[in-house]
């Protein structure tokens, strides 16, 4: 029962290379099918995200170098020369495959430590392979374990709780003040890249209403269309500020757009309801003295960046706890694997002894020729009973062995001594 993984990720390959070896869902199905058709793997699964492409598999017993065959397949599938993949490919075997997958599912191998999307991607990849019949008992067990460890790491550690992007930090701050954003509104001034990301997150979090205002009316309408928002004329900005709970500003301007006087008037008009100002502009769009106004929460790009840095550190501090959970689940997999191996090795041993008994009796047949058939059968039965008695104690001891390492050593010894061909754990 060997496990093999080959793949490349953001740690080993450039984005150009990752793009070339990415699999669509249909391609993943096809690749899994071909890998099994060609006899390279018995069980297989393709995991492809924007940051990694990996082939997981259980090769047949007689496959001498499955990883090389998988690598060659990967190159040919994407119509590339094997040397183009060259140093970007990593290979893992057996326990390292399990550990790698569990770390991936836990977000420990992600570009953004602890990101949540990867768990959904692993789940989807497993579903595709399972539905297609590409997985078997080993990969099923391993991927179910991966989903479990991914969920536990997110539930039991804080590796994914705090925002680590400026845009998401802005939205999470809004939730600190307003709670659910469904009944709240946001006004977007201008639209830089980060501003667009904020809008995306606001939409994801179910923001009630969005309005957009831009100096150029045409660009404002364009942005409003793109964000599915309502356009507000730039000239009406002073009145418009009475409406939103959150203002995200990223306007190219050398002078602050939102002055203290403007916000003071807005706060008066809105009855001092809390107002969150996210200033993504450089130079700043909001007069810093606005931060002193009652019920106004002002965050500029540096403030958000500082929050992100703090949160990244907090996430990094959770790595040991997440790794401990990974270790726990790797050990669980190993225990399961050893259980499966024990059954297989003992079955092989019994088969081997039965064959030896048959051979022994055949060799000595002449000595028993004078015995009636019933007595010969009785001798054969007695030999069976003797072998059962000899095996009884070691089998019980092997099954009952609590220390995994010792159990695996014993299994390995049995395989070697009796030449059992049951596949290594």
């Amino acid at each position, binding site marked *: 029962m060997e496990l093999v993984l080959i793949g490349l990720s953001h740690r080993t390959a450039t984005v150009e290379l990752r793009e070339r070896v990415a699999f669509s869902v249909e391609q993943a199905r096809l690749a899994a099918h071909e890998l099994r058709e060609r006899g390279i793997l018995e069980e297989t699964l393709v995991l492809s995200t924007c940051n990694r492409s990996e082939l997981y598999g259980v090769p047949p017993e007689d496959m001498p170098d499955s990883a090389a065959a998988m690598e060659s397949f990967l190159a040919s599938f994407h119509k590339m020369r094997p040397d183009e993949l060259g140093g970007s490919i990593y290979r893992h075997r057996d326990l390292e495959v399990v550990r790698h997958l569990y770390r991936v599912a836990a977000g420990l191998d992600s570009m953004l430590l602890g990101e949540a999307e990867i768990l959904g991607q692993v789940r989807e990849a497993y579903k595709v392979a399972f539905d297609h019949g590409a997985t078997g008992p080993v990969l099923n067990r391993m991927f179910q374990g991966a989903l479990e460890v991914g969920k536990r790491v997110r539930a*039991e550690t804080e590796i994914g*709780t705090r925002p680590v992007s400026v845009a998401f930090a802005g939205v999470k701050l809004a939730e*600190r003040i307003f*709670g659910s954003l469904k009944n709240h509104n946001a006004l977007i001034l201008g639209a830089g890249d980060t501003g667009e990301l904020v809008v995306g997150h606001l939409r994801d979090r179910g923001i009630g209403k969005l309005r957009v205002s831009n100096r150029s009316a045409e660009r404002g309408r364009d942005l409003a269309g793109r964000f599915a928002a309502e356009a507000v004329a730039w000239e009406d900005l002073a009145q418009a500020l009475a409406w939103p709970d959150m203002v995200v500003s990223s306007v190219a301007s050398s002078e602050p757009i939102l002055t203290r006087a403007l916000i003071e008037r807005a706060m008066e008009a809105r009855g*001092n309801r*809390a107002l969150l100002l996210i200033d993504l502009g450089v130079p700043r769009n909001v007069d810093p003295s606005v*931060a002193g106004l009652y019920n106004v929460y002002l*965050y500029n790009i540096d403030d958000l960046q500082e*929050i992100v840095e703090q949160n990244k550190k907090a996430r990094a501090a959770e790595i040991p706890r997440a790794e401990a959970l990974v270790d726990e689940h790797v050990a669980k997999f190993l225990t399961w694997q050893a259980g499966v191996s024990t059954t297989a090795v003992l079955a092989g041993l019994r088969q081997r002894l039965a064959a030896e008994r048959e051979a022994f009796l055949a060799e000595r047949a002449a000595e028993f020729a004078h015995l009636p058939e019933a007595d010969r059968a009785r001798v054969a039965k007695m030999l069976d009973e003797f072998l059962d008695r000899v095996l009884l104690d070691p089998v019980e001891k092997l099954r009952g062995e609590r220390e995994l390492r010792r159990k695996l050593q014993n299994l390995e010894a049995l395989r070697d001594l009796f030449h059992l061909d049951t596949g290594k754990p």
Partner: protein
Amino acid sequence: MTNYFVPATLACYAASLGFYVRYLYAPKRAIGHAATFALAGGLILHYFALLVRSRAIHGIPYDDLTGSLSLFAWLLAATYLGLELVHRQKTVGAFVLPVVLALFACAHAFATPGTAAPPARGPLFAFHVTLNILAYAAFALSFVASLIYLIENRMLRDRRLGPVGWRFPPLEALERLSRSSVGVGLVSLGIGASLGFVWAHRLLGRWWNGDWKVFVTLLIFAAYATYLLLSRTGTWRGARASLVCVGNFVFVIFSYSIVNLYLSRFHRFF
């Protein structure tokens, strides 16, 4: 008689606190439900614990420190549970349950033998005291919510959320919770105090007995009513109103401790 409901209640509240704290870290639906169910279980067991004591003294257990604090804890937990169900905001539980647990533990750590209720008391009097304690419990809840509001607001304004800031409930939820609990407190205090006047009139033949407790209770009512009004005005909504709410609780503590122990002639209900 050994009251087995006391350790069972303690265990349920402790479990509920554990789940609420866990919920702060991992706001999963199942954990939230577990916290709420454990709290509900604790409330039921706590009710039976109070009932056992009630039967022992043949009355509602508010005549001594044990009974009064225990009843206070029960009403605080019940008020919180009610408001949690209304506002669907479970994160405050992690801050309220320690108070409930502390009150309950104190009540039973210094347990005194139940004493028989004095004569001349009846349902009217029982409602008067129970509703007043409910009002105190509701004000305690608003105090906790407002205190968290002030801390979180300071963190947000200083742009330093730190490790705990991300786990606090949203400011608006805290504001709503505080207002709702003050609303509950004012209604109970209003009815409870009125019943007190009626009872005094029946017993003494006059509505007003000039007791310190009455003065302070009216002061508390006025203070919280002012908070409720101010919290909806533009100038005061938010941190200022929360500060008022936190300050008001000083009167409640004063009334519940100094006034009861040293100043009042008629009110010594613990």
